[in-house]
């Protein structure tokens, strides 16, 4: 593990500080990165994309997990959860590609609307950032719902009864009981979704298109195209930094759990 996981990351860190031509230690790679518009833009595009993906995933996943945990009858609970997460076992790439067929300007949606209403419309949706957000959000919803469900199912039902006995309503139930008690699942799910969104390559390429690349796309084209390893390493390290920042809530969560023990 150390050899194949830690060493490579440090090697990349070292590469990112080396001058591509002379091999001298330098910060120039980082300055160069932020001075070029295409890199700079893609950096913030990546952050924006992940931010939207998390927000939408959480907004959708919370009611879903609530639904499976508290509304669906006990008999069907596992089934409902299974239905939602079974596509985890399908190729992510192929699913993203299928969306291409559905959403493209000659795809199923426009065909269907044309058949029903007779109008020719253009969706202008595929190959935009919105399409990437859409594709990754569907994935995030699955992941966060699963983790939220795991937290929610452990909530003591007597707490909910106490809430309604004391005159509370649905709103106070969610705000005072369910939300605080399922927070760990929510945080873990969001962090994992963020990490996947920030580093994903397939969805931004297939749905977002190549004209407005995210970091992962740039990294790959830098390596396979220009063989500029140092620049690619710089991008990789920037990605690591983003992720370390994203993991801070996770660490505070671990600390909290320890204190409670």
């Amino acid at each position, binding site marked *: *593990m150390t050899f*194949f*996981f830690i*060493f*490579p*990351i440090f*090697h*990349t860190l070292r*590469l990112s500080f080396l001058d591509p031509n002379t091999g001298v230690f330098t910060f120039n790679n980082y300055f160069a990165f932020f001075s070029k518009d295409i890199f700079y833009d893609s950096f913030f595009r990546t952050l924006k994309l992940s931010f939207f993906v998390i927000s939408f995933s959480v907004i*959708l996943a919370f009611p*879903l997990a609530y*639904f*499976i945990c508290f*509304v669906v009858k006990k008999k069907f609970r596992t089934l409902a959860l*299974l*239905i*939602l997460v*079974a*596509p*985890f*076992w*399908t*190729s*992510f*790439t*192929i699913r*993203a*590609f*299928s*969306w291409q*067929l*559905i959403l493209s300007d*000659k*795809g*199923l949606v426009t*065909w269907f609307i044309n058949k029903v209403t007779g109008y020719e419309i253009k969706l202008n949706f595929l190959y935009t950032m919105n399409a990437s957000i859409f594709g990754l959000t*569907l994935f995030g*919803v699955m992941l966060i719902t699963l983790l939220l469900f795991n937290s929610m199912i452990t909530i003591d039902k007597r707490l909910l009864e106490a809430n309604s006995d004391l005159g509370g309503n*649905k709103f106070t139930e969610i705000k005072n009981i369910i939300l605080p008690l399922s927070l760990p699942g929510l945080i873990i799910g969001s*962090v*994992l979704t963020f*990490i996947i969104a*920030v*580093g*994903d390559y*397939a969805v931004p*390429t*297939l749905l977002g298109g190549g004209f407005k690349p995210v970091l*992962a796309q740039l*990294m*790959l084209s830098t*390596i396979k195209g220009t063989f500029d*390893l140092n620049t*690619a*390493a710089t991008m*990789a390290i920037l*990605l*690591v930094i983003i992720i370390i920042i994203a*993991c801070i809530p*996770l660490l505070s969560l671990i600390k909290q759990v320890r204190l409670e023990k």
Partner: protein
Amino acid sequence: MKSFSLLNNFLYVLFTIIVSLIYLPILVMIVFSFNSSKYQIMPFRNFTTSWYQRVLTDSQYIEGLTNSLIVSISVSFFATLLAFFCAYSLVNSNFKGKSFLNIFFLTPLVVPLILIGISLRFYLTSRGYEPSLFLVAIGQSIFVMPLAILNLSNRMSQIPKNLEEAAWSLGSSRLRSMFEIILPSCKFSLIATFILTFTFAFDEFIIAYFLTNFSITLPIKIWTSLVTGFDPAINAIGTIVFLTSLTLGLISQILFLKK
């Protein structure tokens, strides 16, 4: 009471919408895998199974499939084996830095696959290793190990500790008690972990993309056909892979529940 059922109805609708959105692309893929038209646009032409025949006779797909099978089976084998020992020592012994090691083993989970792939490539090529399927197997093992360790240590922590202590006091060695007590009680979890890591490794694309040059795996083949002009045979592969991994996934879930 009225607002209550209104909320429930809303949740039902939301659930249905999300589920159909998740399954729509899969459905489209399966339907189009039987479409005789070479282009992926409506209307649907004739029913055909020729794409399936294409896949099963095309040497490139066959090569990708064999490579993928070799890599993922060795990955899941070694990852499950290693994870078994890691989980055993994490669950059954107390040593300094145990909690640190616990977190350390899980760190690959929070590292995007592209970073694992890219940094391994940098590191190993600088050490003089050429990109190959062997490197792919190493990279993918790093990525599936945390899952395997989580699964196995979960199961192991449920085995009563005194079973093993009884064996020791009856004179059994540590190794023997491990093989005769822990191993049999983890049987189903081990198989389930094997299947789980297999499906993850089989589907994995980006690590493999960075770590091999000429011998390609199936996901890489799929990817290149997707990007360089479309080949309808992909729908057929997708359908096959989907159904196989779904079956395997369900089996592993059932095994987990069985313990």
